[in-house]
């Protein structure tokens, strides 16, 4: 494999990489001005469509196709929301882009706004990113002063304002429609679909929601062209007309029990083992890996034997994970108890469930409490059946919830129990030698007293 030259991260580590001067010296904003002067918005949509760019936020939906869903000839306003509510555990690539190369993100936002004919763009930041906020705001101010933002940019007739919006630290705000509700000033309860945001989104107007990394990719596609983009990654399967392929570079966030955790840019399709060994310096302390999360905790769990799976949009699905997700790889070494891992995962989702749909609100907290009981030495084998039943029945895929949070909560349960069932059974039998085999329902309710 030839050494891969980072593109999205090319400036990271160079002095003053966050400034306009640095960005322009790398050829920044020239592609935007060229597009603005020479091309129509529909041309830009075609450009992105032909590049095969798929959204980097988790679901991997083709970006150009998403833009194409916007109603034609809408009188406006159309909104672009950039999702920087990077809350998936293990994910931190948006942060690096925003903090150290904010102009790349902003140029991508400008190009995307031009393509979608949006005149207002909101960048939705998670609460915990004050430094990213400062850097982005400074970059927006710089760009405005340079005449790259505002009304009638460079005499093109195109106007754009970019606003930062900060969440209040909730995972659900990263869900497309939860984010929209949050920008509107409401509780981030995901909306029922239809209508989809492209038809009726922010302030009931057509809206596109894209990830920060997607914006950076758009900027690079505009600069380097679709051929460059399509030369990287995994081409579409010619046998499967529905496979859009996995093109382009991807920012993988490597953390957990590796020697050199960090955010690494690699072509889509790199295997998990390559990522750990070639970029991460191998599993730490000379230990063996037990499992890894392929792309944020909601994507599930890969066992060590599955580490040769390519990390493209298709790969993790072939070993029972939900998908590539955000590309956040968390490595778990052999000393970690999978019961503890699953408890941690369930605790996270119980805390972050927005509480709208019954199966997710009650299911996630029930799962957490079952795992707490197992860890306290009161587990029963029957609990695994209940956990699996909850895992199999909650989520958008079985249809029992509005958004995908419950699917993300269910996947680690399904993967952990199916792939490490022996360890669960051994732990339960060892810690609860008296009661592991009990299958009776839990004792009757305590009747509450009068109030």
């Amino acid at each position: 494999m030839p050494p891969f030259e980072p593109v999205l991260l090319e400036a990271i580590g160079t002095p003053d990489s966050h400034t306009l001067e640095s960005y322009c010296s790398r050829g920044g904003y020239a592609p935007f001005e060229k597009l603005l002067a020479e091309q129509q918005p529909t041309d830009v949509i075609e450009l992105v469509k032909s590049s095969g760019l798929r959204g980097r936020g988790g679901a991997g939906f083709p970006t150009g196709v998403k833009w194409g869903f916007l109603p034609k000839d809408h009188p406006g306003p159309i909104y672009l929301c950039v999702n920087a509510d990077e809350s998936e555990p293990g994910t931190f690539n948006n942060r690096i882009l925003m903090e150290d190369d904010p102009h790349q993100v902003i140029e991508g936002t400008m190009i995307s706004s031009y393509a979608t004919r949006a005149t207002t763009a909101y960048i939705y930041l998670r609460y915990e990113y004050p430094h990213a906020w400062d850097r982005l705001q400074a970059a927006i101010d710089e760009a405005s002063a340079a005449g790259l933002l505002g009304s009638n940019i460079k005499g093109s007739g195109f106007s754009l304002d970019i606003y930062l919006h900060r969440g209040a630290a909730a995972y659900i705000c990263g869900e497309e429609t939860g984010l929209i509700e949050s920008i509107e000033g409401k509780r981030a309860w995901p909306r029922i679909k239809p209508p989809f945001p492209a038809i009726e989104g922010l302030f009931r107007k057509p809206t596109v929601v894209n990830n920060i990394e997607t914006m950076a990719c758009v900027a690079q596609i505009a600069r380097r062209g679709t051929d460059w983009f399509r030369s990287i990654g995994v081409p579409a399967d010619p046998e499967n007309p529905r496979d859009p392929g996995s093109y382009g570079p991807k920012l993988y966030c490597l953390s957990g029990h590796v020697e050199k955790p960090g955010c690494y840019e690699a072509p889509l399709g790199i295997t998990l083992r390559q990522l750990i060994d070639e970029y991460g310096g191998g599993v730490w302390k000379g230990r063996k890996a037990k499992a890894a999360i392929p792309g944020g905790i909601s994507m599930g769990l890969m066992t060590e034997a599955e580490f040769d799976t390519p990390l493209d949009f298709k790969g993790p699905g072939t070993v029972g994970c939900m998908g590539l997700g955000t590309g956040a790889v968390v490595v778990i070494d052999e000393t970690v108890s999978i019961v503890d891992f699953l408890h941690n995962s369930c605790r996270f989702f119980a805390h972050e469930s927005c509480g709208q749909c019954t199966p997710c609100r009650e299911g996630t907290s029930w799962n957490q409490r079952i795992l707490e009981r197992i860890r306290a030495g009161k587990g029963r084998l029957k609990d695994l059946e209940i956990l699996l039943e909850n895992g199999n029945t909650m989520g958008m895929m079985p249809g029992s919830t509005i958004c995908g949070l419950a699917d993300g909560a269910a996947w680690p349960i399904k993967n952990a129990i199916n792939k490490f069932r022996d360890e669960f059974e051994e732990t339960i039998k060892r810690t609860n030698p008296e009661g592991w085999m009990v299958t009776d329902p839990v004792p009757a309710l305590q009747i509450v007293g009068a109030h």
Partner: protein
Amino acid sequence: MPTVIVDGREIEIGTDERLNCIEAARRAGAEIPHYCWHPGLSVVASCRMCLIEVGSRDAETGKTSMVPKLVPACQTPAKDGTVIVTESSKVKESRARVEEALLIDHPVDCPICDKAGECRLQDYHFEHGQAQRRADIHPFTSRKRDVGPTVSLFVDRCIMCTRCVRFTREVAGTGELMVSSRGSKEEIDIFPGYPLDNKLSGNVVDLCPVGALGDKDFLYQQRVWFLKREDGVCGGCSAGCSIHTEHNQDTIYRLKPRENQHVNKWWICDEGRYGWHHLHDPSRLVEPKRQRDGKGNAAAEPVEWADIIGLLRSDLAAATANGGRLAVAVSPMLTVEEAWMLCSVARSIDPQAMLAVGFVPTSGEDESFPGGFTIRSEKCPNRVGVEHVIAGFDPTVPRWETLLDAVESGSCTAAWISAAYPPAGNRPPSEAASWIDEATAARFEKLRCLIVQDLFTSPLADRADWLLPAAGFAERSGTWVNHAQWAQSFERAIRAPSGVWPEGRLLWNMLGRHRLYDPAVIRREAAATSSALAALAEDLPPIGIDLRLQQLATS
């Protein structure tokens, strides 16, 4: 016509109807359980109880293709060819799981819960739940929180359907209620210092599918299975909201709105909801009294009703002899039937009797809410109906002021003032100002005979020769016509207190009719005398009819 297939049964729905799958299935007789969906509120599809299987049947090939996952029936429109499956094992298992989930944190304190007996959670669990509880969690205790002057919140009974929150935002427009916290720790709450205090607040209790919101007025007063429910009409204002009067042993315990899309949709205001307490007030008039005999001597003795029938006639006849004239105030609290009988009785005593619309109480301005509900400023239910009745006898329809002038000037020598006004503003009668003040009452001084028929004592009652007790709104039968000409018939919900003959019974007997008072007979006779009331000749549907439309149809 679009055809929907519900559990294999084909039903047709209207071309322009926008039904969801719950409504479409109901047409076919299949009840899809649901908590969060309410036809008067926005769709949130969050309780997930109404999950069903749907598909579509191709119009040309007749082939059915099903959606692979479950979908919420409330959110799914029923269109031509929509296939709805409500009883598959997948659907049943999903319902059982939702029930199980809802009960995980529920205190299950049904024995002390006011909602027991009319609780969706109970009913659905019985029908769709599973027998065994698998959850390993002791539920919270039942915390009670004061959210406003009319409503208590039992926090842990809540299933987070958010109907109440949506009601305050979408219908009342006040938005006091909100959801706080997240996940399973979520609670309905108010912002500190901003209680649930609006004129429609009681509706959130009706909307609550479980026992989380309790009506302070009803809390712990009666088990719901002891209550009997009668269709009625609210007498609080000229809106004429359809209600259910819920009572036991001639005592009202609560009023609930009855759905009527033409009048009040699903709601009633708090003024109407709590506007029944005066019926059971101990200071109510319950004895007919002849306070002065025909010669002006104080008597104040109770008289038997059987004797009153004749005595009223003879006293009025004596007072209107020798060129005198009878004036009658027909109260807008009376039903059309009672008003017609009162006019007929008056004209049979004095063919020239003045028939005037009684005092019309008003308060403030009409008050409209974002959800399309309006509280009327006219605080009586039947001014329009009374005017129609009087117009059949006297097209000039004299007003209350005309009557006052006539009794003051002496051109009328006897008066029958029907009143039956509840105390203003839901206050106890002892605190509320009477409907008539001393100065107005003094204008009745010159009369030879004054009959006052009222619920409570008043300055006018003190001057009356005859003081007759009146019936309250839930104690009458008949028809009211609201401000928009919408006529609704109703039967009495409770009997009047012992010793009180409602106006209908007294007047029926004074007309010399036999057997028991039958409003339907009178309604048909009244319909024959007034073109505006012609539509009342037929029996009315429970939701009533629009008199104007009926007139157009018959003209």
